[in-house]
């Protein structure tokens, strides 16, 4: 496997790496990653795009792009998508930044609560989240029915583009929260103390030391949110907003047909904008060195809060958490409800939906654990390999790997799914089923689609490990493998756990590619099961029950991963504290 390739270059003397050469191990690692990306990303998408960008006789043509920009609906959709993505980042930041600061900078009694609950929106499949939010915040949801009763007013929270912004911001703000608080807790206390010694206090300290050092994490999170929202299909569709780019592409591909070029033109535009957004974030960070020499200080000094600060913090945290939990509460009620129609609360409660799903479809849960766990592992391995090749070697063309892997972000799941079907349906497994529709392919597709998250997290983690630490280890006589296992990986552990959890949790709620590729109930994951159940009046409760199970499972996994990372960090802190 490619991991074995890791130690090779880090162990090489600094001078040798300045030369324009690459060790065979580096080349092998790069080729393995490249082969994976070519086979499961470039070729499938390329086949779909090729089919779309040619006219009837197979000649290349650009006329479809002209059509796109001549059509006012598409131009408007384009602007709407930009607006929704931008506003979602803004609203998500309003939620995430204060939470991250409270958790990382202060001794706040509710910190564990914030970190765990902050991940919960991610485990809620967006379409289930939208269903639940309609029930709670919709035009005749619980909130509005109560408001109408009490005050005779109605809040149009879920209407049109702003409804999409509301749902997306609540769903994706954890990306910013997790990346930012990882960044914040990695900031060396020494930096802050240096600033304080020079006389910086309060806001100045925040502005000149903390925020710039936390910028990589914030931008990584914010650009992810932007791209995810820009590409997202399920949420606008469920809220019946069609004048955005992704829904337009989906509508064209699925209603006009696979031969219709416009869907693919939009696909390309989605790809381009997403790459621009990610590239813009990278550009902002270029030319700055964010790495810190000392590690293990346990992050910024966490200070005691005054009573007023604590009250203020609770006053922000509690309403935010209620807002974040509203869809979960909604889905929990729905999973227990007999009938819930035009009333603030269900008519009655029952456990029948849970017994239905546990009796009829236990495989949804085990499949999800298996596929998404494997996909998360693949992602961590690939992400570390690529990050290492990009940051620590001078392999020619290594940036191409990074760009290829990141391009997965901009490929709508539907397009990737159809491409995979086209490319691999002919390949038969020994038992006679097609590779394209087997669970192996589903796992690979999850890995490809979630690789960008893992890669960003691994890159951010590696960026913060100063190279001099590795050089120091080598100078002290540590071998390549020892340097990797004793220095680099432990220093990255928190980032890698975050990478795994992000990949796992988001893969567990992936739907668009799943719908194309999952062909059998027995092989299908949770998200598919929820979707299938949700399509019928009697299945709404059962679908919600599966949703609750999904949320609980991923929440438990996340909690465990957080605990592990935290314990590991404390252990290292202790060791380092005694070492010098």
């Amino acid at each position, binding site marked *: 496997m490619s991991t074995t390739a890791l130690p090779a270059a880090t162990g090489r003397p600094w001078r040798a790496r300045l030369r324009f050469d690459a060790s065979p191990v580096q080349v092998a690692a790069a080729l393995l990653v490249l082969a994976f990306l070519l086979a499961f990303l470039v070729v499938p998408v390329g086949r779909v795009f090729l089919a779309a960008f040619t006219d009837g006789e197979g000649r290349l043509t650009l006329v479809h792009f002209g059509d796109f920009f*001549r*059509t*006012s*609906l598409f131009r408007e959709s384009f602007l709407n998508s930009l607006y929704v993505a931008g506003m979602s980042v803004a609203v998500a930041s309003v939620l995430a930044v204060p939470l991250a600061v409270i958790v990382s900078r202060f001794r706040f009694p509710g910190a564990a609560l914030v970190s765990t609950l902050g991940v919960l929106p991610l485990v809620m499949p967006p379409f289930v989240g939208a269903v639940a939010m*309609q029930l709670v915040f919709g035009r005749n949801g619980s909130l509005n029915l109560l408001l109408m009763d009490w005050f005779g007013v109605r809040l149009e929270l879920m209407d049109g583009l702003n409804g999409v912004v509301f749902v997306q911001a609540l769903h994706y703000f954890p990306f910013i929260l997790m990346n930012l608080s990882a960044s914040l807790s990695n900031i060396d206390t020494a930096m802050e103390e240096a600033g304080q010694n020079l006389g910086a206090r309060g806001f100045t300290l925040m502005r000149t030391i903390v925020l710039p050092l936390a910028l990589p994490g914030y931008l990584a999170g914010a650009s992810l949110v932007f791209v995810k929202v820009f590409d997202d299909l399920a949420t606008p569709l469920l809220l019946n907003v069609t004048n955005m780019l992704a829904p337009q592409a989906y509508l064209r591909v699925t209603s006009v047909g696979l031969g219709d070029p416009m869907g693919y033109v939009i696909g390309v535009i989605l790809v381009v904008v997403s790459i621009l957004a990610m590239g813009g974030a990278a550009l902002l960070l270029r030319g700055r060195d964010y790495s810190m020499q000392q590690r293990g200080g346990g992050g910024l000094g966490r200070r005691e809060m005054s009573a007023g600060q604590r009250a203020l913090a609770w006053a922000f945290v509690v309403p935010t958490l209620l807002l974040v939990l509203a869809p979960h509460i909604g889905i929990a009620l729905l999973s227990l409800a007999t009938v819930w*129609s035009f009333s603030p609360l269900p008519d009655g409660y029952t456990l029948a939906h849970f017994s239905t799903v546990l009796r009829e479809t236990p495989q949804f849960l085990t499949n999800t654990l298996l596929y998404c766990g494997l996909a998360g592992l693949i992602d961590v391995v690939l992400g570390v390999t690529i990050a290492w090749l990009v940051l620590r070697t001078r392999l020619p063309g290594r940036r191409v790997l990074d760009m290829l892997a990141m391009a997965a972000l901009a490929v709508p799941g539907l397009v990737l799914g159809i491409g995979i079907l086209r490319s691999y*349906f*002919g390949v038969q497994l020994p038992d006679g089923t097609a590779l394209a529709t087997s669970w192996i392919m589903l796992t690979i597709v999850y890995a490809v689609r979630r690789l960008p998250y893992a890669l960003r997290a691994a890159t951010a983690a590696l960026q913060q490990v100063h190279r001099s630490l590795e050089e120091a280890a080598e100078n002290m006589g540590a071998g390549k493998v020892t340097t990797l296992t004793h220095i680099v990986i432990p220093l990255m552990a928190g980032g890698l756990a975050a990478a795994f959890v992000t990949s796992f949790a988001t893969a567990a709620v992936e739907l668009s590619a799943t719908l194309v590729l999952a062909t059998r109930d027995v092989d299908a994951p949770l998200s598919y099961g929820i979707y299938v159940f949700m399509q*019928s009046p009697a299945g709404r409760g059962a679908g919600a029950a599966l949703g609750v199970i999904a949320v609980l499972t991923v929440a438990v996994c996340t909690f465990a991963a957080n605990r592990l990372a935290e314990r590991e960090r404390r252990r290292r802190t202790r060791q380092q504290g005694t070492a010098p």
Partner: protein
Amino acid sequence: MQRLLMTRRGALGMAAGAAAAVSSAPARAQAALEPRLVIITSFSRDVTTPFVQAFEQRHPGTKVEVQNRSTTAAVAFVRETRSSPPDLFWASAPDAFEVMKQGNLLARPQIDTAGIPATIGAQPTHDAEGRYFGFAVSGYGMMYNTRYLRANRLPVPKEWADLKNPAYQGHVGISSPSRSGTTHLTIETILQGEGWEPGWAQLLEIAGNFAQVSDRSFGVPDAVNSGQYGIGIVIDFFGFSAKASGFPVEFVYPTVTTLVPANIAMIEGSKSPNAARAFIQFLLSPAGQEVLLDPKVMRLPVRPETYAKAPAGFPNPFRDQSLGARVKFDNGVSEARYELLNSLFDRLITFRLRELTEAWKAVHAAEAALARSNSAQGRELLAQARARLTRVPVTEAQAADPAIAGAFQPARPDRPAGPRQAQLEEEWDRAAVAAYAEARQLAERAQRAS
């Protein structure tokens, strides 16, 4: 017997073939079914599970796997997976079966359809070539949430025209015909029943009351069930099954409706032909037909005798001759403008719903104001506003013209290219935006004049 002979037309020696069919048919029925049967369907689990369970009980050796997809996605899937397809395709919209038949994707299994009438309402029950079979019929109408109507003091609608009532502003939902085969049929039925221009005028006025245009067929009953809006334009079983699940909803058939069979077909290249045939046969058998009356399924059976077991108040198209009889549904007309109609509806209504409903709101407000005063100038302005809001930018002849409608067909190499789709769509979109803006201004002037 005649049907058997017909379906064997392609065999080498006709008489020999027929004889072989007769002698081997019972033998084949006895022959062991394959262990695995894959069904691709647009039906929800509620519908498929009772049938699958009943079938597996009868044939314990066969495990049925259900793949759930929207109709359009299912057609695309079968096309993409030609080398190793699913065994059965099971869905509502007959036009999807027609598309698959044209694409040579459907096999021609021998199915005994004795005891099932050849036509129901104005529609043939089965494909004339024997490539797909109707197992249930469905009509279109309105479902409404009784709690919602009571809370908002709204009258119960009976006919499509009732939905024009300004009282329903923001209370009606529909799915887009381009996304839902069943809605497409509803729209086509209204247009054929009322005529192209009056039909569009009615649709555009009803659309003034739309709360939203959903992209999934199920989005509409879901919203009515949960009370997001009060009235949905849906296929009958959505209403019946929701009611049977305990939701406070009711369903009505307007007189302009049509009964359309929901179908099943064996896919060409099926790996389990015996099991596939047995499943179709089971679906059409008296025992299979009774499953349709399961509270979670609630569809109209194609066997007249099954209705004897139906609950009270269950509609019976074999007895109630008025049901679906008013519209003589013309498949040829529908097919010629199928893609055009989808696109036109989206340009005029789905994508411009906000502009359209705002304009109608202004018209309704002006009408209310004019009812109190009596300004000739106001009436004149209002009439102009209405004319702009109810005009469809395409004539019936244009919609049937292959040169125009042809641009909207999925591209095929053997068909000459017409004027390009994007260009026409852009024209319609501009026309719609301009007309709705003008109408709104006219209505506001009318209100000031009152």
